[in-house]
């Protein structure tokens, strides 16, 4: 699979500030990130030996780059606002949950709920994502190089989910206005989710997403688009079987 090459939000004029979680605590890392003032010169951060720690680099609200050298546990980059976080390993459940802006790149796989309730920014998963990827997404863009599990994009409200591989069962169940683009096969669609026409504006949108995720050699025309049939937007007793 093509590796993601994002333009760094932060300049590399200064040496990285290194936090070794074998030596420093998670609290010290997050507090140092939260203490960053706007315009700080400490724009490049490196986290060593995360060893599956939960809540690594959560609540960061400055445009810095953070390279995490290893795999992380739950909620890495939770509520991220503006930073660029790269996980050089795999991520546990809820990576990038409720992200506001910025970007998160996972070089390995991601567990459940990747990008859950995300409001903005870009989440790229170079491996596979598990179930409920993009659940209740609210404006985030998610690009998965591999496959995604069942119930992904459940109640997805807005934003875009791009999957280069396959999708599991019940994709987009109870979806609202989010757009789903899947290149491979879909095991099944959830309630109120239907395949939709790929119009020129969607091809253009998808090309932009692939470009932002640094993906080359893949054409938007290889994808199918899925979205809401909008039959559940206002309750109607004749649709009761769908609930």
């Amino acid at each position, binding site marked *: 699979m093509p590796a993601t090459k994002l333009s760094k939000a932060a300049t590399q004029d200064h040496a990285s500030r290194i936090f070794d979680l074998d030596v420093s605590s998670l609290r010290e890392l997050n507090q140092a990130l939260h203490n960053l003032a706007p315009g700080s010169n400490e724009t490049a951060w490196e986290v060593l030996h995360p060893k599956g720690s939960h809540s690594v680099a959560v609540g960061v609200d400055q445009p810095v780059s953070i390279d995490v050298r290893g795999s992380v546990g739950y909620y890495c980059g939770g509520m991220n606002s503006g930073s660029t976080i790269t996980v050089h390993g795999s991520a546990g*459940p809820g990576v990038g949950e409720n992200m506001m802006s910025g970007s998160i790149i996972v070089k390995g796989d991601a567990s459940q709920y990747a990008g859950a309730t995300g409001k903005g920014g870009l989440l790229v998963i170079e491996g596979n994502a598990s179930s*409920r990827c993009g659940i209740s997404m609210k404006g985030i863009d998610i690009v998965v190089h591999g496959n995604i599990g069942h119930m992904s994009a459940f109640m997805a409200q807005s934003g875009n989910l791009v999957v280069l591989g396959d999708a599991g069962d019940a994709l987009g169940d109870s979806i609202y206005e989010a757009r789903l683009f899947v290149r491979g096969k879909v095991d099944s669609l959830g309630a109120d989710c239907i395949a939709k026409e790929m119009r020129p504006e969607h091809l253009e949108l998808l090309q932009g997403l692939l470009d932002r995720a640094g993906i080359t050699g893949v054409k938007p025309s290889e994808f199918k688009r899925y979205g809401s049939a909008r039959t559940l937007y206002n309750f109607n*007793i004749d649709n009761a079987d769908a609930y």
Partner: protein
Amino acid sequence: MTYRNPPTTPRKSATFDDYTLSEIRRAAATGIYDIRGAGAKRKLPHFDDLLFLGASISRYPLEGYRERCDTSVVLGSRHAKKPIELKIPITIAGMSFGSLSGPAKEALGRGATLSGTSTTTGDGGMTEEERGHSKQLVYQYLPSRYGMNLRDLRRADAIEVVVGQGAKPGGGGMLLGQKISDRVAEMRTLPKGIDQRSASRHPDWTGPDDLEIKILELREITDWEKPIYVKVGGARPYYDTALAVKAGADVVVVDGMQGGTAATQEVFIENVGQPTLACIRPAVQALQDLGMHRKVQLIVSGGIRNGADVAKALALGVDAVSIGTAALVALGDNDPRWEAEYNKLGTTAGAYDDWHEGRDPAGITTQDPELMKRVDPVAAGRRLANYLKVMTLEAQTIARACGKNSLHNLEPEDLVALTIEAAAMAGVPLAGTNWIPGKNGF
């Protein structure tokens, strides 16, 4: 002359009473269950079934109006760097912007601040009206995450992870399309005019072990400054309280089935959960069994109406109570001054509960700009402050009569029950006896 049998008096069924018959007809006509706001309306065992034992010889009362009776309480002292300090043990429960109008949220903030207590957001995000006028604001972290953002999370004074609600333990929400104004739609990232379904469970965690990690994340995001509350619907209060404590909660909120809702199925409101009275003793017992009573604070809500209810809840071991429906009534909800308009809606003042329709004549549970103008946030806030003051004075009066110089010194020994049911639920003796039904279990 013919003999006629005397006619019998028409007799209606107790099972198929007038309300039940009307519900069957309504269901047959519409094909959908009834959705409404407010809490359970059926008669339930409640605080009215308990009585205080004022002091005589065996106990010594305090002088009313002369001797001090403390009402203050600190919430969130377990882990948070900045616990919540309240002047009174009565807080304003979470009610969403969207369900309530902006002026109503502002009035809640004004009234609470005047009284030295906190307000709580709801399933719709934080509004400037509420943040700007609430000295202490609890920010609810709900399954829907409508409007959830980093800035508001850090502007909050405490965070309440909502796992359940008394009116609908295990249920999600449904804000019907007619209440979705441009502003509400924008805050919730959904198109205007569609029904907004709220999930019944958090999308990114399942179970108490995940909750523990979620709480850790919230603490890390907010630098361990803010108390983390966990709110559960009153269904299994012993185990839910114990698991919330295990997950690291600073404060546990248990909402009994008299607790209100913006819009939920009537059948759910009236048939799921346990009465508030029945929830308190198991929740307190869980804290005591864990050695965490008074270390993790307990807030109970659901049908709290007056100072006697406050005093009784505290006597049973609660640290503070929350009010929702009563606060709305204090602002002006269901006020008889709007009787003619309630009649046009097919109801009467005191019974209006179609809050989801957005046509509230009082301007409180609506997004209609014209109706909203009927709420004067300053005057309504003053009314709420008056009401909170009365509740506090009432509770103090009772506490002094029981010889207590703090509301939190009230204890189960100060209470008896009028009914066997209430005695069993509250764990206090039936009046005139020393019998506590089910003392060795619940």
